[in-house]
């Protein structure tokens, strides 16, 4: 089974590397959205420092959503998805591998860029680290929950907007806990509880999401 | 009895806008829901009759 996982991850990364533009588009979108907020609320440093975690987290949510349709659409279009449904390897495992590959080219890149963007908001060290760690724990959950939405809306008209409507309400707990962790540290309190909760969400999502995505894929593709 | 008169009841101690604004909208929405359902059923039946007539079953 691990050969299957390795192959699927490698294949998805290879395909992503041939379409760098798609990967970068979502990333540039992330950067632009984060930059829009200061333009909207004014450059006052205290205000920006306050809204920074929330803004970066919301932008991470939106950027994650932009890239979700890519997860299954290409495979669905060229028939690979059907092969995956028919394969001997458990569909849940294949799906988990696809989610990991997707996170590597979306969520991970967001985690790497976020600290740089946070500097734009004059966020200082303990907060930077907290923000990055919260994103590191949270973006995989976003990919997993998003995969459920992507599988359900496979091939539907109005795909992107519909996907957002389905997935954003489910993202709310991750957003609250993730952005809240930075606020806790900013207030001088520890964020351990938040990290534990994020880790718990990660574990629960990892347990539940592959099964749900597999079920949704079977429903959508058959 | 809480109210000395009908006008007291309607005035709701000065909060008439909020109380009747709530209950009025709720009543309107519930009535609308029922009306829409009745129209939906009528629409289906009309469509079924039309397709039956087209197929010459009538």
């Amino acid at each position: 089974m691990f050969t299957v996982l390795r192959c699927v991850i490698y294949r998805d990364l290879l395909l992503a590397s041939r379409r760098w533009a798609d990967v970068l588009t979502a990333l540039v979108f992330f950067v632009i959205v984060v930059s829009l907020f200061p333009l909207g609320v004014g450059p006052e440093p205290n205000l920006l420092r306050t809204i920074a975690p929330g803004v970066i987290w919301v932008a991470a949510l939106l950027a994650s959503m932009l890239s979700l349709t890519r997860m299954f659409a290409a495979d669905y279009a060229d028939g690979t998805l059907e092969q995956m449904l028919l394969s001997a390897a458990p569909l849940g495992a294949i799906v988990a591998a696809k989610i990991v590959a997707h996170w590597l080219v979306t969520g991970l890149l967001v985690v790497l860029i976020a600290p740089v963007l946070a500097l734009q908001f004059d966020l200082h060290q303990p907060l930077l680290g907290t923000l990055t760690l919260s994103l590191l724990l949270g973006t995989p959950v976003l990919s997993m929950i998003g995969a459920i939405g992507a599988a359900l809306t496979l091939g539907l008209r109005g795909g992107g907007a519909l996907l957002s409507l389905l997935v954003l309400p489910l993202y709310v707990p991750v957003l609250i806990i993730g952005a809240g962790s930075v606020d806790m540290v900013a207030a001088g309190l520890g964020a351990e509880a938040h990290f534990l909760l994020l880790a718990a969400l990660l574990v629960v999502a990892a347990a539940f999401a592959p099964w749900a995505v597999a079920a949704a894929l079977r429903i959508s593709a058959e | 009895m809480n109210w000395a008169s009908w006008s007291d009841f309607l005035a709701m101690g000065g909060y008439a806008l909020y109380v009747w604004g709530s209950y009025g909208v709720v009543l309107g929405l519930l009535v609308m829901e029922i009306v829409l359902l009745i129209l939906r059923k009528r629409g289906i039946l009309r469509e079924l009759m039309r397709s039956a007539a087209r197929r010459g079953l009538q």
Partner: protein
Amino acid sequence: MMYVTPENTTAGRDRFVGHSSWFRYSSPQTFFPLAGKLAPWFAVAALLLAAAGLYLGFFVAPTDSQQGEAYRIIFIHVPAAWMSMFIYVVMTFWAGICLTFNTRLSGMMASALAPTGALFTFIALWSGSLWGKPTWGAWWVWDARLTSELILLFLYFGFMALQGAIDDPRRADKAGAVLALTGVINIPIIYFSVQWWNTLHQGASVSLKSAPTMAATMFAGIIVMVLALWMYSIAVSLMRVRSIILERERDSQWVAEYASGQT
């Protein structure tokens, strides 16, 4: 195979027919007339309970010392909020049955419940807003409960939008079911995280719960209104599922006979 008829599915052949009288009604064809007979009874019950509840709320329950007459909105706000969550759970239950047993009627029932649930959620939000304005001074307060209701409304919209976007009714049923199940697991998580967020960011919890001591009559009024809304939602869902059955089964013989019999 687009049209599911009693002749070409095992569920349609109703393996339980003849074994148990209740499973006889798991076929849309047999449930249709039953729903038609039951709906008026629930409607009457709803009207009577609503009359009793509103009487309790307006004429028996005393005026609140802190909020004056504005608090009387509670008799529609709280029942609507409770029912909006209850209906989501029931909807998810039927969706789960649809996914597990692959029956048509359970999927139709889930679809029938959604609009009423969404309506109650909106009513909770609307009445909550109108309650908040005189009590807390703002049309919208990020109270944990109201915010959770808002997210619940989005979950309902998502469910209805997903089903609306899928043409094949069986795929729509099952996709909606997966979404509803994902949502129902999330609802407690959403509620607790919003509650946490609310208490962290606002010192004193701005809560739309009424005064700490609730008179027994107030509580009774709320409970009766909850029952009234429950009866209403059953009546309306039965009516709606009848329309859904007619739409989905439009190619079957019994629907054609029913339609010609109606005119």
